[in-house]
Protein backbone atom coordinates (compact mmCIF):
# COMPACT_ATOMS: atom_id res chain seq x y z
CA UNK A 1 0.00 0.00 0.00
CA UNK A 2 2.04 2.87 -1.35
CA UNK A 3 -0.04 5.78 -0.06
CA UNK A 4 -0.49 4.52 3.49
CA UNK A 5 3.27 3.99 3.67
CA UNK A 6 3.97 7.46 2.25
CA UNK A 7 1.78 9.18 4.84
CA UNK A 8 3.28 7.05 7.64
CA UNK A 9 6.79 8.13 6.57
CA UNK A 10 5.70 11.79 6.67
CA UNK A 11 4.40 11.27 10.23
CA UNK A 12 7.82 9.88 11.26
CA UNK A 13 9.78 12.54 9.44
CA UNK A 14 7.85 15.65 10.50
CA UNK A 15 6.40 14.34 13.80
CA UNK A 16 5.63 17.42 15.92
CA UNK A 17 5.48 19.93 13.06
CA UNK A 18 2.05 21.40 12.32
CA UNK A 19 0.43 19.39 9.55
CA UNK A 20 -3.10 20.50 9.09
CA UNK A 21 -5.76 22.92 10.22
CA UNK A 22 -9.39 23.27 9.28
CA UNK A 23 -12.63 24.72 10.47
CA UNK A 24 -12.79 21.99 13.13
CA UNK A 25 -9.26 21.73 14.59
CA UNK A 26 -5.49 21.88 14.09
CA UNK A 27 -3.17 18.91 14.34
CA UNK A 28 0.50 17.99 13.94
CA UNK A 29 1.80 15.07 11.86
CA UNK A 30 2.20 12.62 14.73
CA UNK A 31 -1.23 13.31 16.24
CA UNK A 32 -2.88 13.10 12.80
CA UNK A 33 -1.21 9.75 12.22
CA UNK A 34 -2.43 8.44 15.58
CA UNK A 35 -5.95 9.66 14.90
CA UNK A 36 -5.95 8.05 11.47
CA UNK A 37 -4.76 4.71 12.92
CA UNK A 38 -7.67 4.82 15.39
CA UNK A 39 -10.03 5.55 12.49
CA UNK A 40 -8.47 2.64 10.60
CA UNK A 41 -9.26 0.30 13.49
CA UNK A 42 -12.91 1.32 13.36
CA UNK A 43 -13.04 1.13 9.56
CA UNK A 44 -11.39 -2.29 9.50
CA UNK A 45 -14.69 -3.65 10.75
CA UNK A 46 -16.44 -2.66 7.52
CA UNK A 47 -18.16 -5.70 6.11
CA UNK A 48 -17.30 -6.40 2.51
CA UNK A 49 -17.70 -9.21 0.00
CA UNK A 50 -13.94 -9.15 -0.69
CA UNK A 51 -10.78 -8.10 1.14
CA UNK A 52 -10.86 -4.50 -0.05
CA UNK A 53 -13.84 -2.64 1.41
CA UNK A 54 -15.01 0.29 -0.70
CA UNK A 55 -15.64 3.36 1.43
CA UNK A 56 -17.19 6.52 0.03
CA UNK A 57 -16.21 9.88 1.54
CA UNK A 58 -18.61 12.72 0.78
CA UNK A 59 -17.99 15.64 3.13
CA UNK A 60 -16.79 19.21 3.24
CA UNK A 61 -13.16 20.05 3.99
CA UNK A 62 -12.06 19.46 7.57
CA UNK A 63 -9.27 17.78 9.50
CA UNK A 64 -11.75 14.94 10.04
CA UNK A 65 -12.00 14.49 6.26
CA UNK A 66 -8.22 14.00 6.10
CA UNK A 67 -8.28 11.69 9.17
CA UNK A 68 -10.98 9.57 7.50
CA UNK A 69 -9.10 9.47 4.19
CA UNK A 70 -5.89 8.33 5.90
CA UNK A 71 -7.86 5.90 8.07
CA UNK A 72 -9.36 4.27 4.99
CA UNK A 73 -5.90 3.89 3.44
CA UNK A 74 -4.39 2.48 6.65
CA UNK A 75 -7.30 0.02 6.92
CA UNK A 76 -6.38 -1.41 3.52
CA UNK A 77 -9.70 -0.21 2.12
CA UNK A 78 -10.23 1.92 -0.98
CA UNK A 79 -11.50 5.51 -0.57
CA UNK A 80 -14.04 6.75 -3.13
CA UNK A 81 -13.83 10.55 -2.94
CA UNK A 82 -17.18 12.13 -3.76
CA UNK A 83 -18.03 15.84 -4.15
CA UNK A 84 -19.65 17.00 -0.90
CA UNK A 85 -22.42 18.69 -2.88
CA UNK A 86 -23.54 15.50 -4.65
CA UNK A 87 -27.29 15.00 -4.52
CA UNK A 88 -28.87 11.92 -2.96
CA UNK A 89 -29.72 10.59 -6.43
CA UNK A 90 -26.08 10.99 -7.51
CA UNK A 91 -24.91 9.08 -4.43
CA UNK A 92 -27.37 6.30 -5.26
CA UNK A 93 -26.01 6.08 -8.82
CA UNK A 94 -22.44 5.98 -7.50
CA UNK A 95 -23.36 3.22 -5.10
CA UNK A 96 -25.11 1.29 -7.85
CA UNK A 97 -22.12 1.61 -10.20
CA UNK A 98 -19.31 1.19 -7.69
CA UNK A 99 -20.82 -1.15 -5.07
CA UNK A 100 -19.82 0.92 -2.02
CA UNK A 101 -19.79 -0.90 1.33
CA UNK A 102 -19.90 2.21 3.49
CA UNK A 103 -20.41 5.94 3.01
CA UNK A 104 -18.84 8.50 5.37
CA UNK A 105 -20.61 11.85 5.08
CA UNK A 106 -21.53 15.06 6.90
CA UNK A 107 -25.14 15.43 5.79
CA UNK A 108 -28.30 15.09 7.82
CA UNK A 109 -29.77 11.62 7.51
CA UNK A 110 -32.21 9.36 9.22
CA UNK A 111 -32.19 5.56 9.26
CA UNK A 112 -29.20 3.35 9.80
CA UNK A 113 -26.53 6.05 9.94
CA UNK A 114 -24.08 5.84 12.86
CA UNK A 115 -21.51 8.36 14.18
CA UNK A 116 -18.07 7.43 12.85
CA UNK A 117 -15.66 10.30 13.48
CA UNK A 118 -16.30 13.79 14.90
CA UNK A 119 -18.58 15.46 12.35
CA UNK A 120 -18.86 12.40 10.12
CA UNK A 121 -21.58 9.80 9.95
CA UNK A 122 -21.36 6.33 8.45
CA UNK A 123 -24.12 4.81 6.41
CA UNK A 124 -23.73 1.14 5.59
CA UNK A 125 -24.44 0.36 1.98
CA UNK A 126 -23.49 -3.34 1.87
CA UNK A 127 -23.21 -4.76 -1.60
CA UNK A 128 -24.21 -8.36 -2.12
CA UNK A 129 -21.80 -8.59 -5.02
CA UNK A 130 -19.40 -6.39 -6.98
CA UNK A 131 -20.77 -4.98 -10.18
CA UNK A 132 -17.24 -4.14 -11.37
CA UNK A 133 -13.92 -5.45 -10.00
CA UNK A 134 -11.21 -2.99 -8.94
CA UNK A 135 -7.83 -3.12 -10.65
CA UNK A 136 -5.32 -4.82 -8.30
CA UNK A 137 -3.16 -1.63 -8.12
CA UNK A 138 -6.02 0.73 -7.31
CA UNK A 139 -5.65 2.66 -4.04
CA UNK A 140 -7.93 5.68 -4.59
CA UNK A 141 -11.05 6.35 -6.68
CA UNK A 142 -12.29 9.79 -7.70
CA UNK A 143 -15.06 10.95 -10.00
CA UNK A 144 -15.30 12.97 -13.17
CA UNK A 145 -18.50 14.40 -14.57
CA UNK A 146 -18.41 11.69 -17.20
CA UNK A 147 -19.57 11.82 -20.78
CA UNK A 148 -22.02 8.97 -20.54
CA UNK A 149 -24.78 10.67 -18.55
CA UNK A 150 -23.43 9.56 -15.16
CA UNK A 151 -20.22 10.25 -13.22
CA UNK A 152 -17.23 8.18 -14.30
CA UNK A 153 -15.25 6.60 -11.46
CA UNK A 154 -11.50 6.96 -12.01
CA UNK A 155 -9.23 4.33 -10.51
CA UNK A 156 -5.76 5.52 -9.46
CA UNK A 157 -2.81 3.42 -8.38
CA UNK A 158 -0.83 4.53 -5.33
CA UNK A 159 2.17 5.06 -7.58
CA UNK A 160 0.19 7.45 -9.77
CA UNK A 161 -1.18 9.52 -6.85
CA UNK A 162 2.28 9.76 -5.30
CA UNK A 163 3.82 10.78 -8.64
CA UNK A 164 1.24 13.56 -9.05
CA UNK A 165 2.11 14.92 -5.61
CA UNK A 166 5.89 14.58 -6.06
CA UNK A 167 5.89 16.20 -9.49
CA UNK A 168 3.63 19.03 -8.34
CA UNK A 169 5.84 19.73 -5.32
CA UNK A 170 9.01 19.65 -7.46
CA UNK A 171 7.54 21.58 -10.40
CA UNK A 172 6.19 24.38 -8.20
CA UNK A 173 9.11 24.53 -5.74
CA UNK A 174 6.92 23.74 -2.75
CA UNK A 175 8.91 23.63 0.50
CA UNK A 176 8.55 23.03 4.23
CA UNK A 177 8.23 26.80 4.66
CA UNK A 178 4.97 26.84 2.74
CA UNK A 179 1.59 27.32 4.35
CA UNK A 180 -1.04 26.34 1.82
CA UNK A 181 -4.56 27.68 2.10
CA UNK A 182 -6.77 25.38 0.06
CA UNK A 183 -10.21 26.74 -0.83
CA UNK A 184 -11.29 23.87 -3.10
CA UNK A 185 -12.97 20.67 -1.97
CA UNK A 186 -10.42 17.89 -1.30
CA UNK A 187 -12.28 15.47 -3.56
CA UNK A 188 -11.64 17.82 -6.47
CA UNK A 189 -8.51 17.32 -8.56
CA UNK A 190 -7.35 20.89 -7.94
CA UNK A 191 -7.13 20.33 -4.18
CA UNK A 192 -6.32 16.63 -4.23
CA UNK A 193 -3.30 17.03 -6.51
CA UNK A 194 -1.94 20.42 -5.43
CA UNK A 195 -2.49 20.32 -1.69
CA UNK A 196 -3.05 16.99 0.01
CA UNK A 197 -0.18 14.53 -0.32
CA UNK A 198 2.18 17.10 -1.84
CA UNK A 199 2.10 19.31 1.27
CA UNK A 200 2.75 16.27 3.51
CA UNK A 201 5.67 15.07 1.39
CA UNK A 202 7.60 18.32 1.82
CA UNK A 203 6.49 19.03 5.39
CA UNK A 204 4.43 22.11 4.49
CA UNK A 205 1.33 23.16 6.47
CA UNK A 206 -2.08 22.66 4.92
CA UNK A 207 -4.98 24.90 5.91
CA UNK A 208 -8.42 23.92 4.74
CA UNK A 209 -11.32 26.18 4.02
CA UNK A 210 -14.85 25.07 3.40
CA UNK A 211 -18.03 26.82 2.47
CA UNK A 212 -18.44 29.74 0.11
CA UNK A 213 -15.03 31.17 -0.81
CA UNK A 214 -15.92 34.85 -0.80
CA UNK A 215 -13.10 37.38 -0.86
CA UNK A 216 -14.05 38.72 2.59
CA UNK A 217 -13.86 35.26 4.13
CA UNK A 218 -10.61 34.23 2.47
CA UNK A 219 -8.91 37.56 3.26
CA UNK A 220 -9.55 36.84 6.93
CA UNK A 221 -8.27 33.28 6.61
CA UNK A 222 -5.09 34.45 4.87
CA UNK A 223 -4.45 36.83 7.75
CA UNK A 224 -5.15 34.11 10.31
CA UNK A 225 -3.01 31.41 8.70
CA UNK A 226 -0.31 33.67 7.17
CA UNK A 227 -0.67 31.53 4.06
CA UNK A 228 2.14 31.57 1.50
CA UNK A 229 0.09 29.81 -1.21
CA UNK A 230 -3.53 30.18 -2.09
CA UNK A 231 -5.27 27.41 -4.05
CA UNK A 232 -8.68 28.26 -5.47
CA UNK A 233 -11.00 28.31 -8.45
CA UNK A 234 -11.15 31.42 -10.66
CA UNK A 235 -14.44 32.51 -9.03
CA UNK A 236 -12.52 33.50 -5.89
CA UNK A 237 -10.07 35.65 -7.83
CA UNK A 238 -13.00 37.31 -9.63
CA UNK A 239 -14.38 38.00 -6.15
CA UNK A 240 -11.10 39.57 -4.95
CA UNK A 241 -11.07 41.83 -7.99
CA UNK A 242 -14.71 42.87 -7.48
CA UNK A 243 -14.11 43.87 -3.88
CA UNK A 244 -10.77 45.59 -4.46
CA UNK A 245 -8.47 43.57 -2.21
CA UNK A 246 -5.31 45.42 -1.07
CA UNK A 247 -1.63 44.48 -0.78
CA UNK A 248 -1.67 44.46 3.02
CA UNK A 249 -4.16 41.58 2.99
CA UNK A 250 -1.74 39.43 1.01
CA UNK A 251 1.61 40.31 2.54
CA UNK A 252 2.38 36.66 3.39
CA UNK A 253 1.24 35.17 0.07
CA UNK A 254 3.94 34.29 -2.46
CA UNK A 255 1.73 32.77 -5.15
CA UNK A 256 -1.97 32.34 -5.91
CA UNK A 257 -2.86 29.22 -7.85
CA UNK A 258 -5.93 29.01 -10.06
CA UNK A 259 -7.35 26.08 -11.95
CA UNK A 260 -10.50 24.19 -12.79
CA UNK A 261 -11.83 26.75 -15.23
CA UNK A 262 -10.28 29.35 -17.52
CA UNK A 263 -9.05 32.36 -15.57
CA UNK A 264 -9.99 35.62 -17.27
CA UNK A 265 -6.95 37.53 -18.49
CA UNK A 266 -8.20 40.76 -16.92
CA UNK A 267 -8.76 39.02 -13.56
CA UNK A 268 -5.21 37.67 -13.58
CA UNK A 269 -3.74 41.07 -14.40
CA UNK A 270 -5.92 43.02 -11.97
CA UNK A 271 -5.43 40.58 -9.07
CA UNK A 272 -1.66 40.91 -9.32
CA UNK A 273 -1.91 44.71 -9.63
CA UNK A 274 -4.07 44.88 -6.51
CA UNK A 275 -2.15 42.42 -4.34
CA UNK A 276 1.36 42.23 -5.76
CA UNK A 277 0.97 38.43 -5.78
CA UNK A 278 1.81 36.51 -8.98
CA UNK A 279 -0.80 34.07 -10.20
CA UNK A 280 0.20 30.51 -10.96
CA UNK A 281 -1.74 29.06 -13.82
CA UNK A 282 -2.12 25.31 -13.75
CA UNK A 283 -3.63 22.96 -16.26
CA UNK A 284 -4.68 19.48 -15.35
CA UNK A 285 -7.27 16.94 -16.37
CA UNK A 286 -8.92 14.44 -14.07
CA UNK A 287 -7.65 11.45 -16.06
CA UNK A 288 -3.99 12.54 -16.12
CA UNK A 289 -3.46 14.76 -13.06
CA UNK A 290 -1.57 18.07 -12.99
CA UNK A 291 0.16 18.80 -16.29
CA UNK A 292 1.56 22.34 -16.47
CA UNK A 293 2.43 25.22 -14.18
CA UNK A 294 3.94 28.65 -14.38
CA UNK A 295 3.75 32.04 -12.72
CA UNK A 296 5.76 33.89 -15.30
CA UNK A 297 3.68 33.37 -18.37
CA UNK A 298 1.49 35.58 -20.49
CA UNK A 299 -2.19 35.76 -19.64
CA UNK A 300 -3.17 33.11 -22.16
CA UNK A 301 -0.38 30.62 -21.48
CA UNK A 302 -0.83 27.79 -18.99
CA UNK A 303 2.89 27.26 -18.54
CA UNK A 304 5.40 24.50 -19.17
CA UNK A 305 4.84 20.78 -18.61
CA UNK A 306 5.53 19.57 -15.07
CA UNK A 307 8.21 16.88 -14.53
CA UNK A 308 7.27 13.61 -16.21
CA UNK A 309 4.65 15.20 -18.47
CA UNK A 310 4.62 15.10 -22.27
CA UNK A 311 2.16 17.26 -24.20
CA UNK A 312 1.51 17.02 -27.94
CA UNK A 313 -0.83 18.94 -30.26
CA UNK A 314 -1.96 16.59 -33.04
CA UNK A 315 -3.94 16.92 -36.27
CA UNK A 316 -3.00 20.58 -36.40
CA UNK A 317 -5.20 22.96 -38.36
CA UNK A 318 -4.24 26.65 -38.41
CA UNK A 319 -1.66 26.11 -35.67
CA UNK A 320 -4.05 24.47 -33.16
CA UNK A 321 -4.44 20.76 -32.67
CA UNK A 322 -6.06 18.18 -30.42
CA UNK A 323 -4.16 18.14 -27.10
CA UNK A 324 -2.80 14.71 -26.09
CA UNK A 325 -0.98 14.22 -22.79
CA UNK A 326 1.06 11.57 -21.02
CA UNK A 327 2.03 11.82 -17.36
CA UNK A 328 3.26 9.72 -14.46
CA UNK A 329 -0.03 10.38 -12.71
CA UNK A 330 -2.49 8.82 -15.16
CA UNK A 331 -5.64 7.07 -14.00
CA UNK A 332 -5.75 3.35 -14.71
CA UNK A 333 -9.31 3.15 -16.01
CA UNK A 334 -12.94 4.00 -15.28
CA UNK A 335 -14.33 1.45 -12.85
CA UNK A 336 -17.90 1.87 -14.11
CA UNK A 337 -17.19 2.28 -17.82
CA UNK A 338 -14.93 -0.62 -18.80
CA UNK A 339 -12.76 0.08 -21.82
CA UNK A 340 -13.73 3.74 -22.20
CA UNK A 341 -10.59 5.34 -20.78
CA UNK A 342 -8.39 2.74 -22.46
CA UNK A 343 -9.97 3.69 -25.80
CA UNK A 344 -8.84 7.29 -25.27
CA UNK A 345 -5.22 6.36 -24.55
CA UNK A 346 -3.02 5.46 -27.53
CA UNK A 347 -0.25 2.88 -27.71
CA UNK A 348 2.28 5.49 -26.61
CA UNK A 349 0.32 6.19 -23.42
CA UNK A 350 -1.06 9.59 -24.51
CA UNK A 351 -4.57 10.56 -23.44
CA UNK A 352 -6.80 12.60 -25.71
CA UNK A 353 -7.97 15.47 -23.47
CA UNK A 354 -10.74 16.89 -25.64
CA UNK A 355 -9.00 20.29 -25.52
CA UNK A 356 -7.53 22.12 -28.50
CA UNK A 357 -4.43 24.28 -28.47
CA UNK A 358 -0.73 24.51 -29.23
CA UNK A 359 2.68 24.79 -27.63
CA UNK A 360 4.26 28.24 -27.88
CA UNK A 361 7.94 28.34 -26.91
CA UNK A 362 7.29 25.18 -24.89
CA UNK A 363 4.28 26.65 -23.06
CA UNK A 364 0.76 25.37 -23.48
CA UNK A 365 -1.91 27.66 -24.93
CA UNK A 366 -5.46 26.32 -25.04
CA UNK A 367 -7.83 27.73 -27.60
CA UNK A 368 -10.95 25.62 -27.22
CA UNK A 369 -12.59 22.44 -26.19
CA UNK A 370 -13.81 19.76 -28.49
CA UNK A 371 -16.02 18.05 -25.96
CA UNK A 372 -19.35 19.13 -24.57
CA UNK A 373 -18.80 19.63 -20.83
CA UNK A 374 -20.13 22.81 -19.24
CA UNK A 375 -17.64 24.35 -16.83
CA UNK A 376 -19.57 25.99 -13.98
CA UNK A 377 -17.10 27.83 -11.76
CA UNK A 378 -14.55 25.02 -12.10
CA UNK A 379 -16.96 22.13 -11.87
CA UNK A 380 -17.64 20.16 -15.03
CA UNK A 381 -21.26 19.40 -15.81
CA UNK A 382 -22.31 16.78 -18.33
CA UNK A 383 -25.41 18.04 -20.20
CA UNK A 384 -26.45 14.42 -20.81
CA UNK A 385 -26.61 13.72 -17.06
CA UNK A 386 -28.71 16.85 -16.46
CA UNK A 387 -30.89 16.02 -19.49
CA UNK A 388 -31.57 12.54 -18.10
CA UNK A 389 -32.61 13.97 -14.73
CA UNK A 390 -34.87 16.58 -16.34
CA UNK A 391 -36.46 14.09 -18.73
CA UNK A 392 -37.27 11.78 -15.82
CA UNK A 393 -39.65 14.37 -14.31
CA UNK A 394 -43.24 13.33 -15.11
CA UNK A 395 -44.74 15.86 -17.54
CA UNK A 396 -41.46 16.80 -19.24
CA UNK A 397 -42.10 15.80 -22.84
CA UNK A 398 -38.82 17.00 -24.35
CA UNK A 399 -35.65 18.49 -22.87
CA UNK A 400 -32.42 19.85 -24.31
CA UNK A 401 -29.66 20.92 -21.92
CA UNK A 402 -26.98 23.22 -23.25
CA UNK A 403 -24.39 25.83 -22.28
CA UNK A 404 -25.20 29.51 -22.67
CA UNK A 405 -23.44 32.55 -21.25
CA UNK A 406 -25.24 34.06 -18.27
CA UNK A 407 -25.69 37.81 -17.75
CA UNK A 408 -22.20 38.00 -16.22
CA UNK A 409 -20.63 36.29 -19.24
CA UNK A 410 -19.97 33.02 -17.38
CA UNK A 411 -20.94 29.57 -18.72
CA UNK A 412 -24.31 28.51 -17.32
CA UNK A 413 -26.38 25.33 -17.48
CA UNK A 414 -29.51 26.08 -19.50
CA UNK A 415 -32.49 23.95 -20.52
CA UNK A 416 -35.15 24.25 -23.18
CA UNK A 417 -38.24 22.25 -22.27
CA UNK A 418 -41.51 21.11 -23.76
CA UNK A 419 -43.88 20.59 -20.83
CA UNK A 420 -47.27 19.01 -20.38
CA UNK A 421 -49.96 21.56 -19.60
CA UNK A 422 -50.06 22.51 -15.94
CA UNK A 423 -46.34 21.92 -15.26
CA UNK A 424 -43.99 24.91 -15.07
CA UNK A 425 -40.22 25.41 -15.04
CA UNK A 426 -40.12 26.12 -11.29
CA UNK A 427 -41.75 22.77 -10.55
CA UNK A 428 -39.24 20.97 -12.77
CA UNK A 429 -36.37 22.62 -10.89
CA UNK A 430 -37.82 21.55 -7.56
CA UNK A 431 -38.22 17.95 -8.72
CA UNK A 432 -34.64 17.54 -9.98
CA UNK A 433 -32.98 19.19 -7.01
CA UNK A 434 -32.93 15.96 -5.01
CA UNK A 435 -31.18 14.09 -7.78
CA UNK A 436 -28.53 16.56 -8.86
CA UNK A 437 -25.89 18.66 -7.13
CA UNK A 438 -26.98 22.31 -6.97
CA UNK A 439 -24.46 23.48 -9.58
CA UNK A 440 -25.95 21.05 -12.13
CA UNK A 441 -29.52 22.34 -11.83
CA UNK A 442 -30.24 24.60 -14.86
CA UNK A 443 -30.22 28.26 -13.85
CA UNK A 444 -31.78 29.35 -17.14
CA UNK A 445 -34.89 27.59 -18.45
CA UNK A 446 -37.06 28.37 -21.47
CA UNK A 447 -40.33 26.58 -22.14
CA UNK A 448 -41.33 26.18 -25.80
CA UNK A 449 -44.12 24.46 -27.71
CA UNK A 450 -41.69 22.35 -29.73
CA UNK A 451 -37.92 21.87 -29.94
CA UNK A 452 -36.64 23.04 -33.34
CA UNK A 453 -34.81 20.15 -35.06
CA UNK A 454 -32.78 19.51 -38.18
CA UNK A 455 -34.00 17.17 -40.91
CA UNK A 456 -32.35 14.27 -39.13
CA UNK A 457 -34.04 15.17 -35.85
CA UNK A 458 -31.16 16.83 -33.96
CA UNK A 459 -31.95 19.96 -31.94
CA UNK A 460 -30.93 23.18 -33.71
CA UNK A 461 -28.64 24.47 -30.99
CA UNK A 462 -28.10 27.97 -32.35
CA UNK A 463 -31.86 28.52 -32.39
CA UNK A 464 -32.13 27.21 -28.85
CA UNK A 465 -29.28 29.46 -27.71
CA UNK A 466 -30.99 32.46 -29.27
CA UNK A 467 -33.91 31.92 -26.89
CA UNK A 468 -31.63 33.08 -24.11
CA UNK A 469 -30.61 36.27 -25.93
CA UNK A 470 -34.07 37.76 -25.85
CA UNK A 471 -34.81 37.55 -22.16
CA UNK A 472 -38.05 35.73 -23.00
CA UNK A 473 -39.21 33.38 -20.23
Amino acid sequence: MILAAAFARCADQYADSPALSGPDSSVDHRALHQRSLRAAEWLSGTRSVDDRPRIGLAARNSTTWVTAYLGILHAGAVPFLVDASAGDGELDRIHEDCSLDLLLHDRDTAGDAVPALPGLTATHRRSAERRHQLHPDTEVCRFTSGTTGRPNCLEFSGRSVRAAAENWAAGTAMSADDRILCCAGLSNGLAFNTSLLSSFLVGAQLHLSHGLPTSGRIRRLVAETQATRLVAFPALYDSFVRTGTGRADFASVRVAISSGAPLRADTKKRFTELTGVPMGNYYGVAEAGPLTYSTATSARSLGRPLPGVDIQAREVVDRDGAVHVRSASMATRYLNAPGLLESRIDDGGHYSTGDRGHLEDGELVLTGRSNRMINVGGRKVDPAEVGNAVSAVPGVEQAVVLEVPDRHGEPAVAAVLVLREGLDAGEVRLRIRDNLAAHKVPTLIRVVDAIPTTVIGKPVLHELRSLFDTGTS
Partner: protein
Amino acid sequence: MSAGPQQIREGVIRLIISSHEGDISVSDIEAHGGVLEAVNYTSLSYIRLLDAIENEFGAYLDADEGAEALGTVDGIVAAVLTELGSDAA
Protein backbone atom coordinates in the same frame (compact mmCIF):
# COMPACT_ATOMS: atom_id res chain seq x y z
CA MET B 1 -27.05 59.98 6.81
CA SER B 2 -27.07 56.17 7.00
CA ALA B 3 -29.60 54.06 5.12
CA GLY B 4 -32.74 52.95 6.95
CA PRO B 5 -34.13 49.42 7.05
CA GLN B 6 -36.44 49.94 4.07
CA GLN B 7 -33.66 51.36 1.89
CA ILE B 8 -31.41 48.46 2.88
CA ARG B 9 -34.16 45.98 2.01
CA GLU B 10 -34.64 47.56 -1.42
CA GLY B 11 -30.89 47.59 -1.96
CA VAL B 12 -30.50 43.93 -0.95
CA ILE B 13 -33.28 42.87 -3.34
CA ARG B 14 -31.67 44.86 -6.16
CA LEU B 15 -28.33 43.14 -5.50
CA ILE B 16 -30.00 39.71 -5.30
CA ILE B 17 -31.44 40.25 -8.76
CA SER B 18 -28.26 41.62 -10.32
CA SER B 19 -26.12 38.81 -8.84
CA HIS B 20 -28.29 36.00 -10.23
CA GLU B 21 -27.24 34.23 -13.43
CA GLY B 22 -30.61 34.57 -15.05
CA ASP B 23 -33.43 37.04 -15.29
CA ILE B 24 -35.40 36.87 -12.05
CA SER B 25 -37.66 39.68 -10.91
CA VAL B 26 -38.92 41.04 -7.59
CA SER B 27 -42.20 39.19 -8.15
CA ASP B 28 -40.32 35.87 -8.69
CA ILE B 29 -38.59 36.36 -5.35
CA GLU B 30 -41.83 37.31 -3.60
CA ALA B 31 -43.68 34.37 -5.17
CA HIS B 32 -41.18 32.03 -3.49
CA GLY B 33 -41.43 33.69 -0.09
CA GLY B 34 -38.01 35.32 -0.44
CA VAL B 35 -36.26 31.93 -0.40
CA LEU B 36 -33.24 32.20 -2.70
CA GLU B 37 -32.79 28.47 -3.26
CA ALA B 38 -36.31 28.41 -4.70
CA VAL B 39 -35.26 30.87 -7.42
CA ASN B 40 -32.22 28.70 -8.10
CA TYR B 41 -29.59 30.83 -6.45
CA THR B 42 -26.27 29.08 -7.07
CA SER B 43 -23.04 29.31 -5.08
CA LEU B 44 -21.58 31.64 -7.73
CA SER B 45 -24.63 33.92 -7.36
CA TYR B 46 -24.10 33.94 -3.58
CA ILE B 47 -20.45 34.89 -3.93
CA ARG B 48 -21.41 37.80 -6.20
CA LEU B 49 -24.16 38.84 -3.79
CA LEU B 50 -21.96 38.82 -0.67
CA ASP B 51 -19.27 40.78 -2.55
CA ALA B 52 -21.86 43.31 -3.67
CA ILE B 53 -23.25 43.69 -0.15
CA GLU B 54 -19.75 44.27 1.23
CA ASN B 55 -19.03 46.82 -1.49
CA GLU B 56 -22.33 48.67 -1.22
CA PHE B 57 -23.08 48.58 2.50
CA GLY B 58 -19.65 47.83 3.96
CA ALA B 59 -21.18 44.80 5.70
CA TYR B 60 -19.24 41.53 5.71
CA LEU B 61 -21.52 38.50 5.93
CA ASP B 62 -19.98 35.08 6.52
CA ALA B 63 -21.99 32.51 4.62
CA ASP B 64 -20.78 29.76 6.95
CA GLU B 65 -22.10 31.42 10.06
CA GLY B 66 -25.87 31.52 9.97
CA ALA B 67 -25.96 29.98 6.50
CA GLU B 68 -29.62 29.16 6.90
CA ALA B 69 -30.56 32.74 7.72
CA LEU B 70 -28.71 33.99 4.66
CA GLY B 71 -30.92 31.83 2.48
CA THR B 72 -33.79 34.33 2.58
CA VAL B 73 -34.28 38.01 1.82
CA ASP B 74 -35.43 38.66 5.39
CA GLY B 75 -32.40 36.84 6.80
CA ILE B 76 -29.94 38.76 4.65
CA VAL B 77 -31.53 42.13 5.47
CA ALA B 78 -31.44 41.28 9.18
CA ALA B 79 -27.77 40.25 8.92
CA VAL B 80 -26.86 43.49 7.14
CA LEU B 81 -28.70 45.54 9.75
CA THR B 82 -26.92 43.68 12.54
CA GLU B 83 -23.54 44.26 10.90
CA LEU B 84 -24.24 47.94 10.49
CA GLY B 85 -25.31 48.31 14.09
CA SER B 86 -28.16 50.12 15.72
CA ASP B 87 -28.04 53.22 13.48
CA ALA B 88 -29.63 51.35 10.65
CA ALA B 89 -31.74 49.03 12.73
